């Protein structure tokens, strides 16, 4: 069905960014505009999600050019769910940025760039054209370069160079893949590609082309052996930026992988084995990496890598139970990972550092905030009935059913090491008595109440969404089931786009 308003989540952030550019250097105005803009974006995303959930897949032919020739935008359940989660995360991060970020960074255009980033994310989720997907990826990485290096500290620039080099490499692979794909099929529309790719006689060439996409999206979503840029860059920017990156940027790579490998290249045995091998090694390297880190944000960065492996493994098995687990994990992961980096930011305010060996005694000082953080950490680990638990059931079930015992082992090791590092972090940061040899400055206590609320409120919002996902898993499973059915049977998608 055609709906001309599905790009509203993109335009709301574009317009917010433009108005903020007019209010250049007026940091207070920009803060209000940002919170207002992301709130409106959230309402629009909820409206779009319910509309798609009730009425089915919506499409929009940009410039009124018909489907395979013009650029088409498609809102199906997978994309609207991700737009909704992005909007929730964006709203929370924008509240957090209003007080958790230095005025200097705001003066040099943090907020407009943040909204351009959200615009790029929403655009990437909604597009139905593979070259247009590339363009949205460019919007995302250009804004993320700016966010990463804004402030210009030495460590930031170092992280920024690694991040930029790997992401440009990823874009090159992605673009080369698109070029070959266009050469062998003559179309860029994803629904049209899904039909035409089956008619290509040289299926080996199709298989090789799919490897370009695996490498391109693999770098973006930080899978083994292409993950190393992530832990060496995510601990450098301020926490609000790291939260957006950690929660959303790698997940765009995962989304693109789900979309391309369910619609265009349906995985054959070789692709499945390749993805499964990558998934297992990603889980293991992420888990082992997290084990030895003492900086909280570096630890969380390795956990991102570890849990990316869970989602890739679900895709690699490519059956209903596995995909249910993977998509559910994606939903849970966006909320929790965003929240983790916000928590890291608050811990820095409370203890003055992110080094676990120097922190301590936060539970004694702030019991309520600590319990709030504990809820999030428990959800991450997957204590039943919290949100990290449910997707793992599906993943285990699918892995046993299809005899993927290495993946089962990796899942167990990954979950166990996550539990271990989180328990270690909890005892070091919250329970241990602070090391007495140096006086740690508490930046949180002198803040006025209003600013304290602004720091804690986004964590509460994300935490309540996580709790909702965990305690109301039935509803989330229904949404997930619909997403997975659309991934396994792509005919409704193709029909909606091409109108046949």
């Amino acid at each position, binding site marked *: 069905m055609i709906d*001309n*308003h599905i790009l509203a989540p993109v*335009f709301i952030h574009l317009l917010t960014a*433009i*108005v903020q*550019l*007019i209010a250049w250097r007026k940091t207070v105005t920009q803060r209000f505009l940002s919170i207002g803009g992301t709130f409106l974006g959230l309402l629009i995303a909820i409206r779009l999600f319910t509309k798609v959930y009730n009425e089915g897949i919506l499409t929009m032919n*940009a*410039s*009124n050019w018909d489907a395979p020739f013009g650029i088409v935008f498609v809102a199906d359940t997978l994309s609207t769910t991700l737009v909704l989660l992005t909007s929730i995360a964006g709203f929370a991060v924008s509240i957090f940025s209003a007080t958790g970020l230095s005025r200097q960074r705001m003066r040099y255009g943090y907020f407009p760039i943040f909204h351009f980033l959200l615009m790029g994310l929403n655009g990437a989720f909604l597009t139905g054209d593979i070259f247009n997907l590339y363009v949205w990826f460019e919007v995302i990485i250009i804004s993320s370069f700016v966010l990463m290096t804004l402030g210009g500290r030495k460590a930031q620039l170092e992280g920024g160079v690694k991040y930029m080099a790997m992401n440009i490499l990823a874009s090159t692979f992605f673009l080369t893949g698109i070029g070959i794909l266009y050469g062998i099929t003559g179309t860029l529309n994803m629904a049209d590609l899904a039909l035409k790719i089956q008619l290509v006689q040289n299926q080996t060439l199709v298989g090789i082309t799919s490897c370009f996409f695996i490498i391109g999206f693999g770098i973006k979503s930080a899978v083994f052996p292409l993950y190393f840029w992530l832990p060496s860059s995510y601990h450098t920017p301020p926490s609000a930026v790291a939260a957006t990156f950690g929660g959303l940027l790698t997940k765009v790579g995962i989304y693109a992988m789900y979309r391309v490998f369910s619609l265009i290249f349906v995985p054959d045995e070789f692709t499945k084995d390749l993805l499964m091998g990558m998934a297992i090694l990603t889980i293991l390297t992420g888990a082992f990496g997290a084990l030895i880190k003492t900086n909280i944000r570096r630890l969380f960065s390795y956990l991102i890598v570890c849990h990316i492996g869970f989602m890739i493994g679900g895709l690699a098995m490519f059956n209903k139970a596995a995909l249910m687990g993977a998509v559910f994990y994606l939903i849970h992961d966006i909320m929790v990972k965003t929240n983790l980096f916000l928590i890291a930011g608050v811990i820095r305010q409370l203890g003055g550092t992110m080094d676990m060996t120097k922190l301590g005694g936060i539970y004694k000082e702030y019991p309520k905030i600590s319990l709030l953080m504990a809820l999030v950490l428990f959800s991450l680990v997957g204590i039943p009935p919290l949100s990290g638990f449910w997707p793992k059931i599906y993943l285990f079930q699918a892995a046993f059913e299809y005899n993927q015992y290495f993946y089962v082992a990796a899942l167990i090791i990954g979950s166990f090491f996550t539990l271990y590092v989180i328990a270690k972090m909890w005892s070091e940061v919250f329970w241990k008595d602070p090391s007495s040899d140096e006086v740690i400055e508490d930046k949180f206590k002198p803040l006025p109440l209003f600013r304290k609320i602004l720091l804690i409120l986004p964590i509460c919002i994300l935490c309540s969404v996580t709790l909702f996902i965990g305690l109301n898993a039935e509803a989330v499973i229904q949404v997930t089931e619909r997403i997975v059915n659309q991934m396994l049977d792509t005919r409704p998608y193709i029909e909606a786009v091409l109108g046949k």
Partner: protein
Amino acid sequence: MRSIILQTATKYLLPILLLFSVFLLLRGHYEPGGGFVGGLVASIAFVLHSFAFGTENTMKILRRKPMSLIPIGLGIAALSVIAPTFFGLPPMTGLWFEEPIPVIGMIGSSLFFDLGVYLVVIGVVLTILFTISLTED
């Protein structure tokens, strides 16, 4: 660098280059040209002026910071993209006036998109170049 030849030549070249940039902007829809090229030519006109008379004097004839052109241009372009949705058409659809207007030719929403690009390009190029030339001093 203050050369009387360059200064005199610039006085004549500046309006000609600006006119040429508008010409490029207006013919861009069907023939080579458009907002991006037009914007580059217009910014070259100001760059030439800053070579001849110094960046401070160019800032004076511009009256406002070139950076303020960026949101204006982006705003015009964004509105021209969104405008068709108010007529029940998909975004970015070209809306055209029925009759051509003398000198300018056909006017449609894509011309406003080009105008937005034109302003953004001038804003970005001049902001970058002026920032570099002012920090050098």
